[in-house]
C-alpha cells in the first residue's frame, strides 16, 4: 500500500494505511452528479459544502473513502459525494460501517447520521461503535427534531416541545449527546455548528487526525420544523457570548470581549467567571479521564448561558480494527497461514481401507 503524504499534514498511523491521491484534489472531485434535494435553506447544505471542501485535505485516494448513512434527512448525504457510499437503514449505519472499517483498513470510513437515527433507533450501535474505538468518523447532525417524518420531537428536543405527535408538549427529557458518548468511552468527541465553516473544518480535521472512532455533533438548523433552534449560537450579535470555543491547552475564555472564563466554584461545579479571575481552567482534551470533558458537556445555554464547541476529548487508544488485524497477523506469524485440508483432518481421525 502507498503511504500517504497529504498536502496538509493530516496524518495518523491508520490514515497511513490508506493509498494517497495520485494528484491534488478539489471540492469538485467530491461532488456527485446527483441533484441535492434538501429543503431550501436547510443547514445540511452548509455541512455538505464544508465536507466537500475538506475531503481534498485528507490527500487520500477518493475511491478509498466510504460514507455510510442511516435514515433521515441527513442520511441522504452519501448520494451527494463522489465517494463510495451506502444509504442504509434506520439507525444501523455504525454497525455496517464497523464491518466495513474492520475488514478494510485501507479505507477511510465515515458515518453520517442525525439525532433520531443515532440516538433513538440506533442508540445502541452508536454507543458500542464508540466503546470499541472502531476507526470510523461519525458526523451527527443534530437539529433537535424529526425532519423526514415531518416534525415529531426527537431525543434531543427540549421538554415541552409541541409537535404533531406531542400536541400537549413532549414529556421526556432530552439526551445531551456529548455527555452520552463520553459515558460510552468515546475517544474523540467534538461539537460544531453547520454555519461555522472554518470551525467545522477544523473539527473535521481533528477528527480525521484522531486514530479511532470520532463523534462530531453538528448543530444543524431545520428551517422547516425547528427553525432557529441554534440562533443564539449563530447570530452575529450573540454568538461570541453564547459559545465557548474549546482549544486544547488554552484557557477556557470566551465572550465578544474575551472577558469571560470558566472556573471551578467552591462547591466543585464549573461556573462562568471573569476572564481575569483566579482559577480560570485550561482545557485538556488529551486527559486520560474524561471528567473535565464531561463537566464541560454539561454547560449549556440553559445551565450556564454558554455552549462549548470544539474538541471536548481526543485521546489516542488502541483501535478495535488495529487489534483485530494484529491478532490475525500474530496468529499467522506464530502458526503460519491456515491450511484448509489440514484443518479438516485435525482432531481424531481414522482410516477405512
Amino acid at each position, binding site marked *: 500500500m502507498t503511504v500517504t503524504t497529504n498536502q496538509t499534514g493530516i496524518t495518523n498511523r491508520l490514515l497511513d494505511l490508506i493509498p494517497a491521491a495520485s494528484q491534488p484534489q478539489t471540492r469538485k472531485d467530491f461532488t456527485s452528479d446527483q441533484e441535492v434535494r434538501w429543503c431550501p435553506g436547510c443547514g445540511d447544505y452548509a455541512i455538505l459544502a464544508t465536507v466537500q471542501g475538506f475531503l481534498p485535505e485528507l490527500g487520500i485516494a477518493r475511491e478509498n473513502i466510504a460514507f*455510510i448513512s442511516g435514515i433521515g434527512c441527513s442520511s441522504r448525504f*452519501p448520494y451527494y459525494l463522489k465517494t463510495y457510499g451506502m444509504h442504509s437503514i434506520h439507525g*444501523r449505519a455504525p454497525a455496517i460501517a464497523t464491518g466495513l472499517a474492520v475488514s478494510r483498513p485501507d479505507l477511510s470510513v465515515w458515518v453520517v447520521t442525525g439525532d433520531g437515527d443515532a440516538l433513538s433507533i440506533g442508540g445502541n450501535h452508536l454507543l458500542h461503535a464508540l466503546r470499541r474505538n472502531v476507526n470510523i468518523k461519525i458526523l451527527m447532525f443534530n437539529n433537535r427534531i424529526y425532519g423526514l417524518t415531518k416534525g415529531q420531537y426527537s431525543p434531543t428536543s427540549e421538554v415541552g416541545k409541541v409537535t404533531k405527535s406531542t400536541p400537549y408538549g413532549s414529556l421526556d427529557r432530552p439526551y445531551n449527546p456529548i455527555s452520552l458518548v463520553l459515558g460510552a468511552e468515546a475517544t474523540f468527541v467534538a461539537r460544531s455548528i453547520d454555519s461555522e465553516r472554518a470551525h467545522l473544518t477544523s473539527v473535521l480535521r481533528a477528527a480525521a487526525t484522531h486514530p479511532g472512532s470520532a463523534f462530531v455533533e453538528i448543530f444543524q438548523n431545520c428551517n422547516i420544523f425547528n427553525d432557529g433552534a441554534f440562533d443564539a449560537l449563530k447570530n452575529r450579535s450573540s454568538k461570541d457570548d453564547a459559545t465557548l470555543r474549546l482549544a486544547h491547552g488554552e484557557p477556557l475564555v470566551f465572550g465578544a470581549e474575551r472577558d469571560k472564563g470558566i472556573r471551578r466554584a467552591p462547591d466543585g461545579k464549573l461556573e462562568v467567571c471573569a476572564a481575569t479571575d483566579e482559577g480560570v481552567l485550561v482545557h485538556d482534551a488529551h486527559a486520560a479521564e474524561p471528567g473535565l470533558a464531561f463537566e464541560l458537556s454539561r454547560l449549556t445555554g440553559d445551565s450556564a448561558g454558554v455552549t462549548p464547541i470544539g474538541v471536548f476529548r481526543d485521546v489516542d487508544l488502541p483501535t478495535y480494527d488495529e487489534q483485530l488485524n494484529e491478532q*490475525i497477523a500474530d496468529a499467522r506469524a506464530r502458526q503460519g497461514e491456515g491450511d484448509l485440508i489440514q484443518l479438516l483432518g485435525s482432531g*481424531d481421525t481414522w482410516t477405512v481401507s
Partner: protein
Amino acid sequence: MSGQVRDRQIHRLDRVVIRFAGDSGDGMQLTGEQFTSETAAFGNDLSTLPDFPAEIRAPAGTPAGVSGFQLHFSDHDILTPGDAPNMLVAMNPAALKSNLKDLPAGADLVVNTDAFTSANLKKAGYSSDPLTDGTLDGYRVHRVPLSSMTIDAVNALESSTGTVNKKEAERAKNMFALGLMSWLYQRPTNGVVAFLEKKFAKRPEIAAANIAALRAGYNYGETTEAFAVVYEVAPARMKPGRYRRVSGNLALSYGLIAAAELTGLPLFLGSYPITPASDILHELSRHKRFGIRTFQAEDEIAGVGAALGASFGGSLGVTTTSGPGLALKTETIGLAVTLELPLVVVDIQRGGPSTGLPTKTEQADLSMAVHGRNGEAPLPVIAPRSPADCFDAAIEAARLATKYRTPVILLSDGYLANGSEPWLLPDRADLPDLPVTFATGPNHTGDNGPEFWPYLRDNETLTRPWAVPGTPGLEHRIGGLEKADGSGGISYDPANHDRMVRLRQAKIDGIARDIPALEVDDPSGQARVLVLGWGSTYGPIAAACRRVRAQGLQVAHAHLRHLFPFPENTGDVVRAYDRILVPEMNLGQLRAMIRAEFLVDAIGYNQVRGLPFKAAELAGVLEDVIKQ
C-alpha cells in the same frame, strides 16, 4: 485393558442405542462424547443426539436438570441417533424418571444405586423407591453403586501427583460409568485416557482420579458377575477413506472457512451469541491464521449489519443466529436483497415462537426465511440434511450468495448442530472452485463518456456487478431506496419499480436452473406414495422408508436441499405420485409451499416436540398412508 472376556457369552449385535442420562452437572455430554470417540475409533457407523436443558445448572437432582446423550452405533450405515435405547445409564432418580418412558421392555438399565436416597427420590417426584417397588420389572436392571465405588477407586490411588477431595473423587463417577460401558460393548479406552491427561494437564491429580475411575469401571465389568454377557458390534463397512467425527455446527464452521478459500474472499462473521448457534462463532474465532475476522456484536442487528458492511467491502459476510435472532435481522436482510450484495445468514433453528425451546430442535423458521420480509424480497433458502452435510450446505450457500449477489438463508437446526456422525474427509479436488470477479472498470457509455452503472445486470444471471471500495473510477452510492434499472440512481418511477421488483424476483427464480434436480429414491420404481422432506428429517425419513420397504411396501423419498427456489423438476416429481406425505417438525410450512406452488394435495405429518422424528413412528405413518 484389552478385551479379555472371561467366561462371558458374547452377543453379536448389528446395532446398539445407548443413552447416558444424569444431572446437568454429572458430565453426561462429556461421557457421551468420549464413548462416541471410542466408537468412531473402533470403526462403527454412528449418529448422536445430545439433549440438555436450557438452564446451565437447573436445580440439581430434579427432572428439569436432567441432561442426556444418546448414541446409535452399528455395523452398517445408519441414518438416525436411534428411536429407543437398548441401554440406559441413569445416574440418579430424576434421570431414571424422565428417561424410563423411552426404554422398551427388556432393555438394559444401569442405575447408580448410591444416588437413590430418599432426598433424591423426593426431588425426582418418586413417592416410593423404583428400585424396589416393581417399577423396573421387565427391564434387565444392573444395580451399581457407581458413586461409592468411584470414591473407593480414587482413594486407593497411591498418588504422587497429589490427592483430590471426596467431592472431586465422586465427580469422576461418570468415568466409572464410561469404563463399565466400554467393557460391556468392547470399546477401546486408550483414547479416553489420552483425552483426560490432556484435559486435566494442569490438574494431574484430577486426571489420575478420572483415569482410576475409568479403569475401575472397566474392571468392575470384567471381574464381577453383574453382567452375564458382553456385546459386540462389528465395525461397519464404510466407503474407504479418512474419517473424522463431526457435529453440524463444526461442519458448518469448516464449510464457511472452505467457502472463503474457494471464493478467494476473506471471511467476516458478525454474530451475537445465541443457543444453539454460538458454537459457530466460537469455532471461527479460533482460526485467525485463516484471516477470519469474527466480530461479537452488541446485538443481532449489528451482527448482520457488520457482515453486510464487510460484504460491501469485498469480504464473504456471514452472520449466524437462531430463530429470535433471525427475526431481528429481518430488516437488514431486506437491505441486502435490494443492495444485491452477498451475505450468508445461518439460522440454527430451535423451538419457537419467541424464546421457545432454546436447546430443542424444530423446523421452525422455513416460512420466516422464505416470506419474512417487507416488500417483495426473494432470496435463496437452503437446508443441510445431516451433521456432515452442513459442510457442503455452507459452501453451497456461499456459492449462491457470491454468484447471485444475494443474501442466502441456511436453515440448520438444533438436532444437526449438536448431533454428530462420521465424516469422510474431502480432498481439495472434491471441492468446487467458486471464483468471484469484482468490477474493475466502467460498464456503460453515458453522455459524458464511460460510466459505472452498479445495477447494469448480467444478461444470463441477472446479477449486478460487485464493485468494492478502493476501485478507482467506480465510486458509486447504493441504498435501500428503489434504484433506477441500470444506473442505480434513486428512482420513484412507477414503471421502474415494477420492473425492478420483477428483475429481483427473476434473478432468484433463475437459480432453479443452477441447482441439481430433485432426486427421488424409489428403488422399485413402483411407489405411488412420495415422502417429501427437507433438512434434518432426512435421517428418520430415510430410515422409515427402509423399514417400510423391508416389509415389501413401496415408497419414494425425495429430500429438498433448496427450499427457495425449488429445483426445476420439483413440480414434475410431486405430480407423479398419488399421494405426497410431508413430515415436518412444524405445523406444515413446506407442505403449504408445495400446495401453493404446485396445486397438489400434499398431506402433512407434523410434530413439534423439540425432538427429531423416530424412524419407527414415521414408518407406521408411512404404512398407513401407503395402505389407504
